[in-house]
């Protein structure tokens, strides 16, 4: 202490004290301060956003802009939510082959983990519907009959009575709902992909949506019975009429030819 005390008037003493004080303050801060920022970068969520951002820059940014703000080729993704990404990318619609109103379903090129990362990134751009969990779209506790009624009121005008799809204007069409993942049906109602209007919770309650998904599962499942058989695509009078004209009239013509045909003749020997 004496040594220290003896040098207290040394010209550099003030500097040493200052450095010491700074080091202590910094050390104490590092030890006790809330360490949010430093740790946050390691959570799964922010890692997913980071990875999603990289995937987005490669696969999506050319149309939707580097920050998802949209360009003349693609709409803004701010506020579309994770559900929209899960639907569009999960069904292979995005990345689209070309911009346009009708983006058909195709083979999905991202795996589930990548889709989740992209969804996490887009969800971070603005609040929007999140990906529904299984309880929301499973058929447990759903009223299939009510679902059919809701489907005919809200969906059948475009998608046909049992979801076989139908034509719209200028070459656009409502796709078939046969073989579509219940999750994707739920997400489509939430987000309104492409030209489909959305059916938010104010329009169709979550229970309504669950009923509709259950109805589609019941009418389009693998084991769904069709008592009459020969649905011919379930599209109604167009295919049925065509079938009737070709095969029904065709059979009548064949029988008429048989009735009136010349019989084989023989020479009397």
């Amino acid at each position, binding site marked *: 202490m004496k040594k220290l005390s003896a040098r207290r008037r040394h010209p550099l003493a003030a500097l040493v004290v200052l450095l010491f004080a700074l080091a202590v303050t910094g050390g104490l801060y590092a030890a006790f301060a809330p360490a949010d920022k430093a740790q946050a970068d390691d959570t799964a969520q922010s890692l997913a956003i980071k990875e999603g951002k990289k995937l987005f820059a490669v696969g999506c940014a050319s149309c939707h802009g580097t920050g998802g703000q949209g360009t003349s080729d693609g709409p803004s993704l701010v506020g579309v939510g994770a559900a929209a990404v899960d639907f569009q990318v999960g069904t292979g619609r995005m990345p689209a082959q070309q911009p346009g109103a009708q983006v058909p379903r195709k083979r999905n090129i991202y795996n589930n983990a990548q889709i989740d990362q992209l969804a996490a990134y887009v969800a971070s751009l603005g609040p929007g519907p999140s990906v529904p969990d299984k309880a929301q779209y499973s058929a447990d506790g759903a009223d299939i009959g009510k679902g059919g009624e*809701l489907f005919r009121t809200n969906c059948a005008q475009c998608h046909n009575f049992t979801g076989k799809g139908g034509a719209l204007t200028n070459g656009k069409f409502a796709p078939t709902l046969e073989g579509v993942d219940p999750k994707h049906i739920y997400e489509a109602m939430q987000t309104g992909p492409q030209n489909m209007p*959305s059916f938010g919770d104010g*329009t169709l*309650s979550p229970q309504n949506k669950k009923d509709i998904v259950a109805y589609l599962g019941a009418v389009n499942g693998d084991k*769904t019975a069709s008592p*009459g*058989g*020969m*649905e011919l695509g379930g599209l109604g009078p167009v295919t049925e009429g065509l079938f009737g004209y070709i095969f029904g009239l065709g059979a009548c013509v064949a029988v008429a030819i048989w009735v009136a045909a010349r*019989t084989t003749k023989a020479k009397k020997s």
Partner: protein
Amino acid sequence: MSETEENLPSERETPHEGAVGKADNPFADPGLPPHEHRIQDIDERAAKRSERTVAMLFLVSMLATVAFIASYVAIPIDKIVYIFPLGHVSGLNFALGLTLGVALFCIGAGAVHWARTLMSDEEVADERHPIEATPDVKAKVLADFAQGAKESQFGRRKLIRNTMFGALALVPLSGVVLLRDLGPLPEKKLRTTGWKKGVRLVNQSTNLPLRPEDIAVGSLTFAKPEGLEENDEDFANKIAKDALMLVRIQPQNIKDKQELAWSHEGIVAYSKICTHVGCPISLYEQQTHHVLCPCHQSTFDLSDGGRVIFGPAGHALPQLHITVKDGFLEAASEFAEPVGPSFWERG
């Protein structure tokens, strides 16, 4: 002079064509071809074979009828079976259709085969009678008519004739009066709907009154007037006029000034009934704001006052003036024009 003569048709034909003409006439009746025999006509074994085939077809028909009755009795009505090209079908439907079809077809096929192979196939011409009556009959009918007219004194007693014309002219009026009973006159039903000032808009799916925040841009909601319930006696007739579709369009994207004035912050309410023949239209494309009618492809632009942009519809889709009171959407007035298809007195 000589040129015009050259252009005239040659006059050679008449003199010496008479003899050749008859043989060369392409329209002469060729008569029936000579009859040829079938195998069955000359070979008794072939005839027997045909007989057996016909009998076999009738027998198959009998068996199919028995099978029809058996499957009607035996197969439960809700039995679902898998049959290859048809999928999961009702076993009863399939069995009944197949057996009845076979039973009927075999009767017909047996009869046709019988006629083709065993019944006589010699063609016989049977000439028609002339349609015209003979001169004697004609003369008698005309004489009878003249005598009857004279004896009835129709031409002489003008009072009888005129009163008879009067009676015959009046009698159909009773039928015209009966037409009145075909139904009450439509009164003003075609011009009015259940919407009037202060009626709340109720979501047809959830049956709850709608608030502006329920309706997002790009969404589609169907609404009915408050107080109209699905089990009401007259529900079907009323919803056929009252059905609304609600969409929200960014106000800067609404081109029609009146549409903007009748909307609430971009929420517009349009009649769901097509103005062509009254189909419910709701094939709404949220990016183009076009609504397509599935019946005859009439297309309306909801961002431009419901204007017809394609198809046979005669006038724009009627818009309902809406407003907000106590946080709920409600009608600000009735429809300004009749909804649905045109009618004579619509103007």
